[in-house]
């Protein structure tokens, strides 16, 4: 792509299309969620009580803050403040990893209570609750993978900013990585109430 003039609008359009596909990917799971919530309303309410709203809420705050950080990083580079941009990016990645650590503790607690996909304990619960936890692990798991990918992406971009490959005159890669991170955040904004707050 280097041999021709950089197509800024094209790069943004391509990224937006990719983000659509991410949303549709999760859309399939949201569709399943809707179907099963309709069928097992009471079971879903009951099962949601087992989730730790405090940990979930904390993770929501963490992700929202990280979204702010990545937005600040973009603005900083736009104004030519490379150091500030690097700091904000590092903070974003750190918050993303913090989210995953939190998630790790949350999942381990569930596992130690015998709540994991295919467990015998889960099989004794009413079918609706088993489906709830199936969806819980599928959706938060897939989201977790996206957080991991996003953190990796932002780390790479951080390196590129440091080496001056992404700079004030040409920062569409940073912008696109930021957009990806916002979408990851956005998906969590929907996951959080659907699993933690429907008690």
């Amino acid at each position, binding site marked *: *792509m280097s041999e021709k003039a950089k*197509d800024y609008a094209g790069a943004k*359009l391509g990224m937006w*299309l990719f983000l*659509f*596909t991410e949303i549709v990917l999760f859309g399939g799971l949201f*569709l*399943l969620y809707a179907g099963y919530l309709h069928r097992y309303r009471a079971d879903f309410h009951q099962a949601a009580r087992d989730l730790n709203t405090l940990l979930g809420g904390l993770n929501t705050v963490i992700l929202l803050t990280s979204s702010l950080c990545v937005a600040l990083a973009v603005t900083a580079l736009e104004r030519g403040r490379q150091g500030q941009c690097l700091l904000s990016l590092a903070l974003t990645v750190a918050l993303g990893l913090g989210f995953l650590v939190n998630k790790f503790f949350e999942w381990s607690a569930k596992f130690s209570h015998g709540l994991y*996909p295919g467990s015998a304990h889960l099989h004794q619960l009413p079918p609706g609750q088993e*489906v709830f936890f199936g969806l819980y692990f599928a959706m938060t798991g897939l989201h977790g993978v996206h957080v991991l990918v996003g953190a990796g992406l932002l780390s790479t971009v951080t390196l590129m900013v440091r080496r001056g490959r992404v700079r004030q005159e040409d920062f569409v890669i940073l912008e696109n990585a930021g957009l990806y991170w916002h979408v990851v955040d956005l998906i969590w904004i929907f996951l959080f109430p659907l699993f933690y707050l429907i008690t």
Partner: protein
Amino acid sequence: MTEAASPQDSPARGFLTPEPGRGGLASWIFSTDHKRIGLLYLTCIMTLFAVGVCLGLLMRLKLMTPGNTIIAPQTYNAAFTLHGVIMIFLVVIPSIPASFGNILLPLQLGASDVSFPRLNLFSWWLYVTGALVALVSIFTGSGAPDTGWTFYVPFSERTTTNVSVAVLAVLILGFSSILTGLNFITTIHQQRAPGMSWRRLPLLVWSLYATAWIQVLATPILGITTLLIFSERVLHLGLFDPSRGGDPLLYQHLFWIYSHPAVYIMILPAMGVISEIIPVFAHKKIFGYKMIAFSSLAIAFFGSLVWAHHMFTSGMSDVAVLVFSFLTFIVAVPSAIKVFNWLSTLYKGSISLEPPLLYSLGFILMFSIGGLSGLVQGAAGADIHVHDTYFVVAHFHYVIFGGTGLGMFAAMHFWFPKIFGRMYHRGRAAWAFGIIMVGMNTLYFPMFVMGLEGMPRRYYDYLPQFAHAQFISTVGSWVLALGLLLMFHNLYAGLRRGAPAGPNPWGAATLEWSVASPPPKENFPEPPVVSKGPYDFAPREHHV
């Protein structure tokens, strides 16, 4: 134009010229040139098509006589599964967009390449990876997948065959398809030459545009569906397992939300090809340009809302059945608009019956039969009778082989002189077309009859009453294979020894014909400025 020419007077090689400094193969598989990537796709697709055809011939051979012959039931199950998976995901879905779309889209837009050339190469690599993983699924684990290409639960969760690896292959192929679609949409928006307004876009571009939107918006659902089957098998999530509260019907919904629109990924580009060919050989401006362009978008839109017509017998509310049945009939309208516009273009045209037009006419005939038989299944009542019978198999092969397949062959014969700079033997191409048409109809038409009489699809054996039709159908498969061999041999011979074709042998007016054949590496020596429509033909100066 003469057919015979000495091999010495070879035309300039354009983008086919070997690159200095780079090894032969490396200059292809690491090239970001859209034309080379398109040819890479074409080669892979045609190779896998040959594999799929062989599997089909094997099944037909088994079904020629009733009883336990040639292959065991489990092998037969694997054969129809692999035939489906290979033909759908590795051949028909990428077919025209990935090969001819890649080669022609930038040329028709007057651009030097697609928007993201490296992403384009990456998506070809994904395609190859997917094909290799599919291959692995056949030869490893405890047996090749035996679920059918639809991977229906609960069987796909419980079978011990290698379904987990096969769905991963489909996932990777889906990702490849998404990236191609994303690239095409961006290219069409961003890379049009000055003067190439939306109303001057060739109709192939319009159809690729509509296709690309379906690829981008529907394929992720295939991704999540295959991912879920994989997790069901490996992690035992239980989301589709009735004993764990799951519902297999929701799997069918997810699967068809992708897989119905996918048939428009398959057919729309072929319709675009036909819309390019017909005006050229009628030597007449296309009739109803706007309606053809618009109907592509309409098919893409309504086609996304009809998926549950595959599930009339699966269990749904009557309201849902009626709504989906009604919407299915709606999709037939834009399809019919196209057919009528093509026929109106031919009407009072100055027709030259060259091979590309022959294949296009074949497309119209086969697609009309296939499309109308689709309405029999779209009608909720009639579907109960023909559901899961040979009728469906016949319908699908008329639409997809008779439609997309012949569309692809039409494209091959139309753009062959452009891509390779040489002409094939046109008389032999016409003969091959005739044999293919006879073979195809002999092969598939008896299936309509058997389906109406109740022959279920995917069965290893059958009642004596079907013996005659099954036999005729198998003979048809041999005729078809013969026609295909003749066609490919003729094209190959043209590739090696054909007479130089010149830049514009058909007198077409879209931009790719304004450059040399094969096109130069950079496409346009001078950036083109477009001042006329894609079907404003020059007065005819040559007689063929």
